[in-house]
């Protein structure tokens, strides 16, 4: 079961993006994308509490924006295509995003029209009074085949499921950082920076959770053969080197 936390008034990454785009002055194209991206990231940054499914949707759009932005800033764009968008050039990625935005906008408009219709219809009430006494006996037996014990089992099962659910919810709450997401983020950081020290990957004032999940992330990347690790001395800062950088240098 998913808890949906409202993120300000946005219904999703496309909604946010549309609002940001609308707010901007029409300007030199390259500056536009940069500003939209920055504003978008700022919003994503401010969302400190929401479910992981929603987060990943927002981050995917953020990543796509970043790629487009990076591509638009660099003369040689070919090296900046992320793993996710293997087959797409930055132009294609941008076109895809724009197309999806336009389709989304269309459905947003038609949803508003549907809402208006529903509102109008909701002012007309059908009869909910049920059958007159004389006819009630003729109604089909909706409980046919259901025993009293069957009913009790259903209720007991529900209460049990709820207990288990509450347990799992607690369990999940203790680990708010997804390893997969964080691994991806570390990998992107390394792609930008090249060689980095572990302490640099942590950022300023890292929480213990961040330290743990970052360590797990580099171990995971190491296992996948994507990075090299070096530690000159016990307790020394770990040096993290992306594999393709090693190959290039």
């Amino acid at each position, binding site marked *: 079961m998913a808890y949906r936390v409202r993120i300000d008034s946005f219904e999703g990454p496309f909604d946010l993006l549309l609002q940001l785009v609308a707010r901007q002055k029409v300007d030199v194209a390259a500056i536009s994308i940069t500003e939209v991206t920055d504003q978008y990231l700022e919003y994503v940054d401010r969302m400190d509490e929401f479910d992981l499914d929603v987060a990943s949707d927002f981050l995917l759009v953020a990543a796509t924006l970043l790629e487009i932005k990076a591509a638009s800033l660099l003369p040689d764009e070919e090296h900046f295509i992320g793993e996710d968008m293997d087959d797409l050039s930055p132009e294609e990625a941008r076109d895809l995003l724009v197309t999806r935005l336009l389709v989304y906008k269309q459905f947003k408009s038609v949803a508003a029209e549907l809402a208006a219709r529903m509102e109008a219809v909701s002012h007309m009430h059908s009869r909910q009074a049920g059958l007159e006494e004389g006819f009630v006996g003729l109604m089909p037996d909706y409980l046919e085949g259901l025993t009293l014990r069957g009913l009790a089992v259903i209720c007991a099962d*529900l209460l049990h*499921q709820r207990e288990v659910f509450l347990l799992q919810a607690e369990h999940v709450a203790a680990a708010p950082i997804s390893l997969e997401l964080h691994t991806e983020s570390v990998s992107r950081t390394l792609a930008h920076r090249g060689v980095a020290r572990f302490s640099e990957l942590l950022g300023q004032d890292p929480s213990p959770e961040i330290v743990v999940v970052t360590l797990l992330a580099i171990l995971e990347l190491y296992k996948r053969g994507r990075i090299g690790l070096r530690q000159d001395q016990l307790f020394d800062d770990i040096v993290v080197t992306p594999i393709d950088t090693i190959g290039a240098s």
Partner: protein
Amino acid sequence: MEIDVTLRGAIEALLFVSDEPVSVARVSKILERDQDVVSQMLEMIAEEYRGQERGFQLREVAGGWRLYTHPAHHDAIEQYVLSWDTRRLSQAALEALAVIAYHQPVTRAGINAVRGVNSEAVLSSLIEKGLVKEAGRDRDAGNAILYTTTRTFLEKFGLKSLDELPPLEEFAPDERTEAAIKERFGGPAVAVTEEPDDDSSDLAEID
């Protein structure tokens, strides 16, 4: 005499959605019109339906006025009702019914909390089928509507009263499951040795 169609329409609309006789006093309060005027209009509507030989009639019964189908069409209605779909209750409806049976009176929020999903549509279908009814409001929960099962529900299961529902403990998860749950809570895996000796207190706990 000119007919006040707005008043007539409003009264008809109220009668249409009502599942019980509506008193003149109640109508006059809601519509902010004199009782005399309302009374006259009710008489007039009843007469109109009679005169036009409508399929429904407006009758004054104990406690007020209420719309009924015209007895002339009894057979057609009977045939119609008998033709109703005998689709059984959905799993969702069964769950809501079970929760209401054991937790009544309970608010919609209470049902949702146990089921973990919204029970709105399911509730109105149970009410339509005469298995569940509204029964007052919970003052402690923002006047939320309380739901209980109906007499029809008791009759279907041949119960004299709700006390005769089988105790839920009989259907609790077995000891191993329970131990596993406790363990996951991080507490010591206490063996469940004793049988619950007092049903009623246990039931109270579930509520």
